[in-house]
């Protein structure tokens, strides 16, 4: 693709794998379940056994952690015992604080994600369809993209203060580029042979866009969504850690002050849950929008 060729190679490399709109493939996790390891036909251990083993390992680790904490090998100010984390979670949930912070963070993430993907998608469609739009926008967008977005933090603080706007802006920024690039490349890489079919079947311009170009670009767009969910999560953590009066980040900062490692562990779990939530969102989209692809199909329609 011409456009990517003009990028600073270094800036693109680390993202290249995640953003490359290759043939539709999920993440390693998504693929794993459809493509079993080559020698898993084990006669002694059934599917259930493998399932149990896969849970046994983390359960053992947590049990060992609890055990060592109780024996005093792990000091509470280094890492709280799982039981303590559970109790703290219960207490925070009881007085409702947990949900206020959770809600604040989710809202930020959602607002930033929706803004960023709407903007990224629109720009991607515009540049994907129009050489003029590419000439006007693409180089500048790529230049801004080359800035590691953490480096923008000082400016963002000056512009927005430590306001909610700044935090949403950071998440938006983290989402715009992966969606933009993958939408644009997805559109550009639609097979010209299929567009010839549009011509000989007399498909209208809108038909061409809605039946061929956008669905053809969809695997690539969803790759962008998946990647953006990751960067959004990262941006959220950073944005919340600068300064926040509520949100999961606030819980972290507050807990750090008082060495409350139980709360810190809880927030880690919450951020992980955010990640998992994003992953299931991506999966849901893939199953709905890529039902035609054997990798995602849940039976014929």
């Amino acid at each position, binding site marked *: 693709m011409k456009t990517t060729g003009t990028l600073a190679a270094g800036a693109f490399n680390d993202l290249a794998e995640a953003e490359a709109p290759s043939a539709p493939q999920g993440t390693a996790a998504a693929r794993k379940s459809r493509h079993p390891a080559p020698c898993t036909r084990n006669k002694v251990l059934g599917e259930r056994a493998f399932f149990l083993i896969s849970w046994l390992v983390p359960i053992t680790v947590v049990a060992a952690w609890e055990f060592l904490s109780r024996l005093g090998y792990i000091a509470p100010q280094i890492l709280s015992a799982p039981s303590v984390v559970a109790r703290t979670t219960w207490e925070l949930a009881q007085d409702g604080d947990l949900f206020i912070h959770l809600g604040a963070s989710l809202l930020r993430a959602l607002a930033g994600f929706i803004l960023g993907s709407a903007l990224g998608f629109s720009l991607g469609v515009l540049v994907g369809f129009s050489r003029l739009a590419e000439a006007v926008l693409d180089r500048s967008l790529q230049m801004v993209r080359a800035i590691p977005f953490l480096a923008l933090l000082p400016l963002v603080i000056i512009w927005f203060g430590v306001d909610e706007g700044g935090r949403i802006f950071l998440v938006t920024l983290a989402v715009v580029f992966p969606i933009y690039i993958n939408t644009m490349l997805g559109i550009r890489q639609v097979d010209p*042979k*299929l567009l*010839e*079919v*549009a*011509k*000989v*079947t*007399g*498909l*209208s311009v809108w*038909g061409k866009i809605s*039946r*061929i170009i956008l*669905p*053809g670009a*969809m695997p690539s767009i969803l790759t962008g969504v998946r990647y953006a969910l990751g960067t959004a999560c990262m941006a959220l953590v950073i944005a919340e850690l600068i300064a926040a009066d509520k949100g999961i980040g606030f819980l972290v900062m507050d807990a750090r002050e008082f060495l409350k490692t139980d709360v810190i562990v809880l927030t880690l779990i919450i951020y992980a849950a955010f990640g998992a939530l994003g992953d299931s969102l991506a999966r849901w989209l893939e199953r709905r929008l*890529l*039902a*035609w*692809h*054997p990798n995602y*199909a849940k039976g*014929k*329609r």
Partner: protein
Amino acid sequence: MGEFSPNSHAVVVRGLRRQYGERVVIDGLDLAIGTGEFVALLGESGCGKTTLLRALAGLDEADDGTIESTGEIAVVFQEHRLMAWLPLWENVALGMNTATGRVLAQNALGEVGLAGRENDWPLNLSGGQAQRVALARALVREPGLLLLDEPFAALDALTRIKMHVLIRELVARHHPGVLLVTHDVDEAIAIADRILVMRSGKIAISLDVARETEAGRGPLRARLLHELGVDVPDAAHV
């Protein structure tokens, strides 16, 4: 077949010229195909068969000459060119009104032996099945001219023979003029009413295939091979 009326033409080409840069690929080509006539086009690889077909399909502009056709023009390419993300019936009904398109597409899929598969996805099909869907997509719009660019080349021998039977049936029923590009002399003899050989950017010869008699096939085959620059010692004396 062969019951076309010589007065009504699916397409008439006069003095067609096509060039890529300085290189003239089609050079003053004349051609007429009757309604319901099945014409096969042979020619060495790279002699301009696809170029001719693309010009007829309106995919490329002619550099000179005229192409007059009656009715719609439909194309089946060497690859099926189905949209993987559209169910079969939407592939077939592409560019048609959705309400009527669905019913017509279902019928067309039935005609190519894929009845009941209208909601299936293209990636679940074999090569032969996918090519049959492409055929249904072409025929569903009742074209006046059907262009086929080596549509069976990628299929295995048995599937190809089945496709020959199928396409003759379909053409007999829908009655379009057909131009089938192929590199296979036997295929051309098996299904066409008339065989053209293309050379130096023109139609070099046009031979009728006597469908009724098997006897004429041997000499015809030898003649065609000779025109294509292949001389088979035994066949030449048949």
